[in-house]
């Protein structure tokens, strides 16, 4: 009897200990800091990515291959290599402006203002999504919503509220693994709270000292049977990028 009671007391003690550890963990997470750590992991000063953009519009799947060079959050240059229809297309982002060059027309176009809201090459991403040039931790105030299991990982679900009312998505949610500071899922919402986009970050691999996703799946939640998968085949951090890559003179045949 004494043994049985001791066992119950011990079990209760264990449960209490576990519960208190969990709650301490929940309370101890600084959502904003976690977001900053996430940004630090994702944003490198200079990087090169060679990847594939797989656009599935529900009827047809198109694969675009591209090389991209990025410097910080504000400058990037992409060069599309295939298919034949898009081969030679170049995109240059400098600050809030995006130029596009198509060899078929042999002209560069400034995609600005409302044009940025159009779908990029028929994908689930808009040009605006593609050229997002701010770190989440700078644009949003984060609060911890809850902990949730996602694909077997206990994630901190952060609720992000935009600081500026001009920010396209006023609220977002991010599922972040607090252990290794990586984002696994993100949802973007309309002002009304209606879900608009879901992004899954997959295939994390260690490159140098960073964990970087090798697959991103974008889904426009208002459309049916469409998704755009961005697969990174080569990722190099802190590469030397020739200065001409971030000059408009690159936008020619």
């Amino acid at each position: 009897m004494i043994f049985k009671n001791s066992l119950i007391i011990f079990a209760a003690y264990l449960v209490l200990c576990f519960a208190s550890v969990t709650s301490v963990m929940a309370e101890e997470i600084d959502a904003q800091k976690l977001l900053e750590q996430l940004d630090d992991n994702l944003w490198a000063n200079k990087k090169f990515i060679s990847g594939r953009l797989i656009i599935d519009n529900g009827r047809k799947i198109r694969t675009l291959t591209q090389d991209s060079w990025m410097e910080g959050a504000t400058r990037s240059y992409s060069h599309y290599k295939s298919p034949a229809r898009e081969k030679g297309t170049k995109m240059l982002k400098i600050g809030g402006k995006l130029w596009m060059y198509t060899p078929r027309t042999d002209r560069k176009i400034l995609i600005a203002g409302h044009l940025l809201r159009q779908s990029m090459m028929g994908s689930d991403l808009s040009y605006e999504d593609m050229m997002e040039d701010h770190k989440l931790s700078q644009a949003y105030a984060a609060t911890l919503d809850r902990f949730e299991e996602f694909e077997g990982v206990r994630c901190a679900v952060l609720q992000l509220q935009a600081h500026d009312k001009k920010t396209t998505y006023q609220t977002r949610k991010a599922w972040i693994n607090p252990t290794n500071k990586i984002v696994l899922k993100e949802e973007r919402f309309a002002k009304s709270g209606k879900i608009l986009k879901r992004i899954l970050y997959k295939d994390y691999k260690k490159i140098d000292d960073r964990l970087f996703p090798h697959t991103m799946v974008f889904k426009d939640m208002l459309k049916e049977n469409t998704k755009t998968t961005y697969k990174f085949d080569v990722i190099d951090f802190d590469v030397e990028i020739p200065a001409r890559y971030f000059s408009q003179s690159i936008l020619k045949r």
Partner: protein
Amino acid sequence: MNWDIAKKNFYRQGMRAFLNVLVTALSIISLIFMLSLLNGFQAQATRNLVATDVGGGHYRAPGFDILSPTEWEDHTLKPDESLLRLSNEDKAEVLIQQGQLYPNRRLYPVQIRGISMEQSLLSLPLDNLKLYGEQIEDIIPGVVGVKMARKAHLKKGDILTLKWRDKSGAVDARDILIVDVGDMVNPRVDDGVVWLRLDHLRSMTDRQGEVSWVAVRNYIGPVKGFEFQAVEALMADLLSLLKQDRRNSKILWTILMILVCTSVFNTQILNIFKRQKEIGTLMALGMEPMRIIRIFTLEGALAAIWALVVAALLGIPFFIWFQGVGFDVTHLSESSFPIREIIYPDYQPKEIFYSLLIVVFLVVMAAWIPVKKIIRLDPTLALRGRAIT
């Protein structure tokens, strides 16, 4: 005297004269029909545009261009006091924004038009929107036209998502309930357009009190901050299309007139060839060549006069009947013409009078030109039937 001779000669021509008269009469009927149909088309299109969209003109935000949807959001402003003072019978405030509708979860770019519910200047089937309050509740009520409903596979009672941007550029989306599918008459306010209450659209986009334009019944003079676009400017594309149509109809009209004139011309040539002995005799008896020419020309003129009579006899009943049944232009319902499915001719007396005058003149000329050579005719040769070979 001349008239009696001409009349006798004309009736003696028999079938030839009758055919000339018939061809000319049918051409006159076709001509009047064609002109009146174009008039009817223009009048009906103008009426529909004025009633559903244009009113007596628009006071627009400077730079607003309906053909540049990516810039609509940059051209909205609050109406001046002078516009706000107008009664609801004399003005209609309209706000236009870009949006994206998702019927069956497919993207469908749309024009979101908000219109004040109190206005009675424009005639649009938006009564069901009036059943809702100024505040948006769970769902946004919207109305679409028949054409839009057909293209986007929508029906009354459907609930679907509408996405738009607010004034700051933040994206927003909510469910919209199609409270009615209305017959808009004018495809410009139907195709790709979702109609909302103005107060709802203003609150959705954070544009309190703003408009893209104010349609007015009458021009009220310059208004600070707005530029006036008259009915003609707002219908410029349609008017230029109709102008082109009129130009094309002139080609058809010319062909018809050439046929009529050729017929009369041919008859006259045959007349003087067959009747050269008669001409020679008249000349030998002392009749002046000019008088003979007048007689022959009068014969041609008689064809024109009889053609007018026959055109009236055949045409008036036809026009009366046609005014009742109209002309079916169902094939245009898929185009952007602001027209109903049946159009009715619009007969303009002045236009008809001038057209008839031109026809008579041309027929008389066609009758005169071949006979003017009589002046050079040798009577002796004519008597022997060898003057014209």
